[in-house]
């Protein structure tokens, strides 16, 4: 079993290295976006799948990362890599501040307060024209020459997002990750065995915000511009849909979801952009009603138990 797994991973890795070389550049761009969305959704799923906390405002941290990177590069003329390096910390700072309040609540109230905070971030970004450019966003946020080609930026994104996802995987498998799952299953029992529930939840929230901010930073340079929409409802919805499509019970579910989601988006949104939200909304309704395990969950019902069984 382990050798099969190892071979599987080698094939995936080789594919990731070779594909950007052979694919046409528009597909390379799609692959880059898949990696970014996959990171965002995986970071989100640290909360939802492993912590049992549903944030409806994760766009806030994505946007904080994107704006931090864009502002540092544009206004302070920092090199791109430094700007990108600060992005997750800016998002984590925001997540720490908002999360402090959000983790005090449970379920519905948790989701609502996270949504409200994201709405605040959106409003501030939208209204603070002097700093953020308001509706016009910040334009021409490009990486340096060396990373400017789609292929180069794709490899760069793979490297950064890949490391981040490995880090998230390590977090999920760490004692901290186990405690987080215990809290998800039964918060009261977790407290009785000495787990500081609120502190663990806050830490998970900050970590999730951190990696969401990194995804935001990567996206800023990928997109070449940042807009207030990055903090809007639809963006908060994205990781949720992606994770749900892929299956929230497995660590790699959101990545698979990102792949499926972006392929669908590439096919449908290019052809009929107006119908895309309709399709997306319908897909969500269908998944919720008919396939709560997600499409990946449907294919491999038992696979998600592997990490817990070890």
């Amino acid at each position, binding site marked *: 079993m382990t050798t099969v797994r190892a071979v599987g991973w080698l094939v995936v890795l080789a594919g990731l290295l070779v594909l950007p070389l052979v694919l046409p550049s528009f597909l390379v761009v799609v692959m880059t976006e898949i990696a970014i969305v996959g990171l965002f959704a995986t970071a989100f799923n640290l909360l939802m799948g492993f912590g049992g906390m*549903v944030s409806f405002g994760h766009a806030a941290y994505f946007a904080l990362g994107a704006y931090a990177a864009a502002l540092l590069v544009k206004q302070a003329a920092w090199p791109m890599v430094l700007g990108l390096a600060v992005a997750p910390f800016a998002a984590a700072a925001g997540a720490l501040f908002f999360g402090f309040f959000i983790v*005090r609540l449970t*379920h519905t109230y948790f989701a609502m307060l996270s949504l*409200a*905070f994201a709405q605040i971030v959106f409003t501030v970004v939208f209204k603070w024209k002097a700093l953020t450019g308001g509706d016009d966003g910040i334009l021409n946020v490009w990486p340096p020459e060396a990373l400017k080609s789609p292929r180069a930026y794709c490899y760069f994104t793979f490297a950064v997002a890949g490391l981040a996802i490995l880090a998230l995987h390590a977090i999920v498998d760490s004692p901290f990750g186990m405690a987080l799952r215990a809290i998800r299953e039964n918060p009261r029992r977790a407290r009785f065995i000495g787990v500081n529930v609120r502190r663990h939840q806050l830490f998970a929230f900050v970590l999730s915000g951190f990696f969401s901010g990194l995804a935001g930073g990567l996206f800023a340079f990928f997109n070449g511009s940042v807009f207030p929409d990055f903090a809007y409802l639809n963006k908060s919805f994205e990781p949720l849909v992606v994770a749900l499509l892929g299956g929230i019970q497995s660590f790699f579910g959101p990545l698979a979801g990102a792949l499926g989601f972006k392929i669908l988006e590439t096919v449908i949104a290019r052809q009929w952009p107006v119908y895309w*939200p309709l399709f997306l909304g319908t897909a969500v309704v269908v998944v919720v*009603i008919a396939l709560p395990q997600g499409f990946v969950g449907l294919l491999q019902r038992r696979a998600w138990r592997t990490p817990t069984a070890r």
Partner: protein
Amino acid sequence: MDLLTSLFPWITNGPLIVVQVMSGLSVAMFLFLVSVGMSLIFGVTRIVNLAHGSFYMVGAYLLVTLVETLPQHPLMFWVALGLAPIGVGLLGGVIEVTLLRRIYHREPLLQLTLTFGLILVIGTAVLLVWGPDNKSVARPDALAGSVRIFGQPFPSYYLVVLALAPAVAVALWIIFYRTRWGMLIRAATVDREMLGALGVDVATLYTQVFVFGSWLAGFAGALSAPTVAVALGMDGDVLTTAFVVVVIGGLGSFAGSFISALLVGELQSFGILVFPAVSIVLLFAIMAVVLIVRPWGLLGRPEE
């Protein structure tokens, strides 16, 4: 006092303050109608209907279409105002019967996600039916102008809104506290299982409540249509504000929604005078404080 007057020059302007209070009250009226429906639906079905703002938007668009298609007559506005919310109520009924009914027993996460998905579906449907351009609808002729209150102009249409506010609140109070149906609703918010065990057809009650809540949202949307630009972004704006109202007042609390709507309405009205750019942030800050001190809201009940 000198500092105060220099910071807020309007503070000695009594008439302006009166008008500002009144416009805050009319904002509160819309907020109350939307949030009491949202709160009611939550109280009974335990679902936070994120598509509630979308129902409001559909109500406003339906009014625009009805006013355009109905024959020209001074009274037709009121006919349209009566019909548009019924359309929204029907829409809510269809959604409840076909979708929500299947997920009452599931985790709150999936319920929230489903209604979130409905925002997208309804939003696109509205875009496809009514197009991307903003719509506007004229106020009925008799109410097109404004009256002077202590010398300050005040739109007459808002006077109707202000008169309707207490009427609707009293009607809702009578429904909730003086009818058998209202009693069942209140019973359902306390213990749904027990109500079902006592032989009440809970499934039908859920549908009725959802239709009624949607109707309220549609009514608020239709009533607001002549006062705003009817646009695609309405759903999100209304949702977030209604949501703040409901959270401050307490999910599932009728009186809470009323008090909180007044508070938020006045805050918005005066917030614009005091901190023009950040009034919405102020709103969310207050909500955050309430959530931290009393997560279940001013008049709500703690979560089990």
